[in-house]
Structures are given as C-alpha cells and as structure tokens.
C-alpha cells in the first residue's frame, strides 16, 4: 500500500511551483509587451498589453544593421555547426573505436581543455588568427569556433556504446573503414547529432566575446554586436525600438527552442550524466 499524500502537498507545492514559474518568465513577458509600447509609455508599469505599436519592429528592422547581422549570425552558426558535426563525429569515432598509439593522451588533453576558461586564451587566439590573415573576416569568425572538446567528448561516449556488429558486417561486405564510418556509423548517430546540432547552433548564435574581438568591420557584425551597438553606440535609439530589436534577436532561438525542446533537454541530460 502506498502512503497517501497530504492534500496540502497536492495544493501547496504546485502553487509554489506556479508562482516560481511565473516569476521566472515575468521578465521575458515584460520585454515583449514593452516592445509594443510607444516611446513615452515604454517604462510605465502596466501588466497587460494595452498598446500595440508594431511600427517599433519595423523601425528596429529598417533603421539599423539588424537584417545584415542576422544573416551573418545565421551563416556563421549554420556553417560552424555543420562542419563541427562532421569533424567532431570523426574524431569521436577515432577515439572510441580505433586503437591507435597516443589515443589516451589525445583524449586526456582534450578533456583538460574543458577546464580552461576562454578568457585565458582569447588574446593569443586573436594574435594567431590575425597572423593567419583571418582577422576581421568570416574565416576568423568561423574557423576557431569549430573545435570544441565537448562535442568530441559526447560523440566518443556515443560511439563507445554503439553496437559493433553493424560495422563489422559492413566491413566484411568490403566497405573500407572510412566507408563504414560515413555510410553506417555517422547516419546512425542521429540521437547524438540532433541535440548537439541544437546546442552548437544556439552557442554560436549567442556568442559575443569572440566576434567582439575578431571583427571591426560593421558588415561582419553578428546579431549580438549589432544589438549591443544599438544600446551603447552613440546614436540615441528610443527604448521601445531597442526592446523590439532585442525581441527580434531572440526570435530564432525561441523558434528553435520550441521546435526542438525535447532534444535540447536530452542533450543536457547526456552531457550531464556521462
């Protein structure tokens, strides 16, 4: 027999949870309704959306470098994510499956880089990227962002638990090892590729420090830089328009989040547990 739960628990806990949830989502709600106000009423405290100045969004969109920066961000995030998935899967596969000398050393070295805060290497990374002629270019934004020990680590964990029989069968059929990987192992890695893709895309969309360092040209600005410039860039922009721009900057992450939230949670679980 199961002990019964006191009714207070049935009512109190969900209520507390609901209040917490509302508090936590409140700032986002405020942002959205404030972005629809006029310049004079933007900071008035008003819980309900009573004004709908959709022109704010129009103004934010046309009056700034926002459209271009969004295209930049999309291009960079997608490129980094696609290239990273292929390279990371290859490295992860090598570390999990192929027994070659130095494998353990490479793995340990890779894990240790997870312990190095980015701000420690940002200066030399900038100097190196500049020496390679990639500063202030799409190359400089993309190439150093591709490699990330976390992705390789998760791929390695995934391939370690991957049934060997499939690959062995493919190999017996005469596929080369590279063929086995690209035709069998990689296409079957969807359960790990999906959450990692979402994670990589979001991380790159949200990245601020590296683009800030490596780009000067306004044409190369990513969304974060464009938005930061709108606030502190010298020109006066009304707050309602700034807030509208901030909402626009968050829209792609919202869409991705709601489409793929199940996988996102899966991804965090995997990274947390293993």
């Amino acid at each position, binding site marked *: 027999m199961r002990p019964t739960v006191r009714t207070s628990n049935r009512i109190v806990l969900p209520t507390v949870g609901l209040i917490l949830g509302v508090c936590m989502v409140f*700032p986002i709600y405020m942002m959205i309704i404030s972005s629809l106000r006029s310049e004079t009423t933007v900071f008035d405290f008003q819980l309900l959306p009573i004004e709908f100045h959709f022109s704010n969004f129009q103004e934010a969109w046309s009056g700034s470098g926002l459209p271009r920066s969004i295209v930049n961000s999309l291009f960079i995030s997608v490129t980094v994510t696609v290239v990273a998935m292929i390279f990371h899967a290859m490295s992860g596969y090598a570390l999990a499956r192929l027994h070659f000398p130095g494998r353990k050393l490479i793995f340990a070295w890779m894990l240790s880089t997870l312990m190095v805060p980015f701000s420690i290497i940002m200066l030399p990374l900038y100097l190196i990227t500049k020496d390679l002629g990639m500063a202030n270019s799409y190359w400089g934004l993309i190439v150093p962002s591709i490699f990330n020990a976390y992705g390789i680590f998760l791929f390695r964990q995934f391939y370690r638990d991957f049934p060997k029989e499939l690959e062995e069968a493919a190999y017996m059929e005469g596929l080369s090892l590279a063929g086995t990987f690209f035709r069998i192992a990689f296409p079957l890695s969807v359960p790990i590729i999906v959450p990692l893709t979402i994670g990589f895309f979001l991380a790159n969309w949200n990245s*601020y*420090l590296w683009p800030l360092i490596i780009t000067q040209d306004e044409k190369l600005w990513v969304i974060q830089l464009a938005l930061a410039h709108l606030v502190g860039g010298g020109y006066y922009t009304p707050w309602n328009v700034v807030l509208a721009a901030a909402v626009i900057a968050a829209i792609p992450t*919202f869409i991705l989040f709601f489409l793929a939230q199940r996988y996102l949670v899966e991804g965090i679980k995997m990274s947390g547990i293993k």
Partner: protein
Amino acid sequence: MRRKTVNYSKYGYIFSLPFILAFLIFSLYPILYTAVIGFTDMKGIIPKPVHILDNPFENFRELIVNNVSFRQSLSNTFLIWILNFIPQIALALLLTAWFTNQRLKVRGQGAFKVLLYMPNIITASTIAVLFNALFSYPVGPMNSILHELGFIDNPVNFLQDKTTARGIVAFIQFWMWYGNTMIVLIAGVLGINPALFEAASIDGANGYQTFFRITLPSLRPILLFSLTTSLIGGLQMFDIPQLFLGGGPDNGTLTTSVFIYGQAFKGSYLYNRAAAASMILFVIAAVLSAVLFYIMRDRDAAKLKKEEKRIKKAAKLASKGA
C-alpha cells in the same frame, strides 16, 4: 576464416587529424603563448620587437601588488559567482525534488521544464537590454513595482549603485542557469537505482526522509559536476557584465574576464598585462579544478584498491615465507 586486418592506426590518425591540428593551433599553442607574453614587454597594436623583461615577473607583481582594478575584478568574480550559485543550486534541488517525486506526479511537467529553461537560450545582449529597461531610473517597471508595494519612497538608481548592480548581475546569472542545473539534476535522479527508492518506501520513509537520505547522497557526483562546470563558467563570466553595465558602475561588476578584455583590446593594448592576468586566472582555475577532482574522486574505489594492494602484499609475504 582469416579476417582482414584493419589498419586502425592509419584511420585513427586520419580521423583525428583535423581535431589534433585545430587543437594544436587554437588551444595548446595559445596557452603556451599566453604564458610567454606575460613575461615580455609586448603591447600596442603595431608589432614591435618583443623582449623578455629584466624582471620577468614584473607584470605579475604589478597586477597583484599595485593594480586595484585587478584585485577588485577577482573579488567581484567570486562574489557574483557565489551569489548566483547558492540560490541556483538550492532552487534547482527544490524543483528536482518536486519534479521527481513519484507520489506527487506533477502534471504538465514538460511544459514547466521548458518554461524554466527558457532564460538560458536567450541571447545575452537581449537580456542586457531587458534588465536595463526593467531597472531604469527614475521611471521604470522595477521602481514602479517597489513603490506600489511600499518598499521604497523615492526611485532607486539600481544601476549606479555598486551593491545593487552586482546583485542584479548575480541574479541574471542565476536566472539564466538554474534551469540548466535543474535538468542535469533531474537526469541524475532518474539515474539512481529505483530499488533504493522502493526499499525506502517499504521501510516507510516519508518524502523528506527519502530526499535527504537517498536522493541527495546519491546525487553527490552530479552535484560536484554542476559545481565544477559552474565554477569554470563563473571564471569566464563576460557577456552579461560587459553588455549590461560594461563592468561599471565604478568597477562594481568588473569581472576578471572583462578586466582582461579591457587590458588587451582597449586603451593602450597592454598585451603583456592581459596575458599575465590570464595566467593568474589559469592558475586559479587549475587549482580549483584539482581540488574539486580530489573531492570528486571515488572514495570507495580508492579504498578498495588500497585494500587489494594490501592483500596482495600480504599474500606475497606469505608465499615468500612459505
């Protein structure tokens, strides 16, 4: 039947080559490079011949002894991190206990989790704009709420006061990350052997007893994992302090990462001093992670190993004696 021998080594190297190259160029080399720059007179954007300083530790000494901003940035980083981590782990644990309680069977869990996780995916610049608006002075939503509730009589300039500014930055960090911690902890609870909970239930343990005697002790490794990742994340805290208040007011939210950025990429481009500060941060990160790894190590496994060794030794001695 003879099997073809697979040349694992060849493919192993080919497959990991992109990774090895990239990490040599973009990870190992930068770390070594930082260490070197810290001992030199390298500064300014125009390349000049670089020399090792007469007193190689000059940059380090200058930072630790004379530089008030640097020391302030270290204490700010720790203060903001602690202020964000304690409520973060507390709330995440509470929510975890609630979501994983078998008897409560909370409905609509999925939607809740998604909602609570949302702040984590919003871009930092959006969040900076949002909180700037919320705490604006003299008229702003936060000032209005507090005035209406009777907590304050006159509007407070939250963003110009060091204490409140720090508090807000810590709150933003907490707000962005508790959902993430919660999901990691929930996954951890789901990984605990269900037999433990069953046994506790049969023994008549109530919810609190189960949580404190079973769940919490079993979560130890996951909690330490969260602590480590949060600590490393805390040491590189940059986006919010920089975007929100630019490290101000009066260096009140200047974190070490913002300090390093300011030294290297603003004003007089003091590469050497930025590198020295980076090395100090590196040492701090290394020491802290070493301590955490030491705490995190599997004590039972270590004990078992020791015991095994002792038995083997005893057996050896016995066999020699025989």
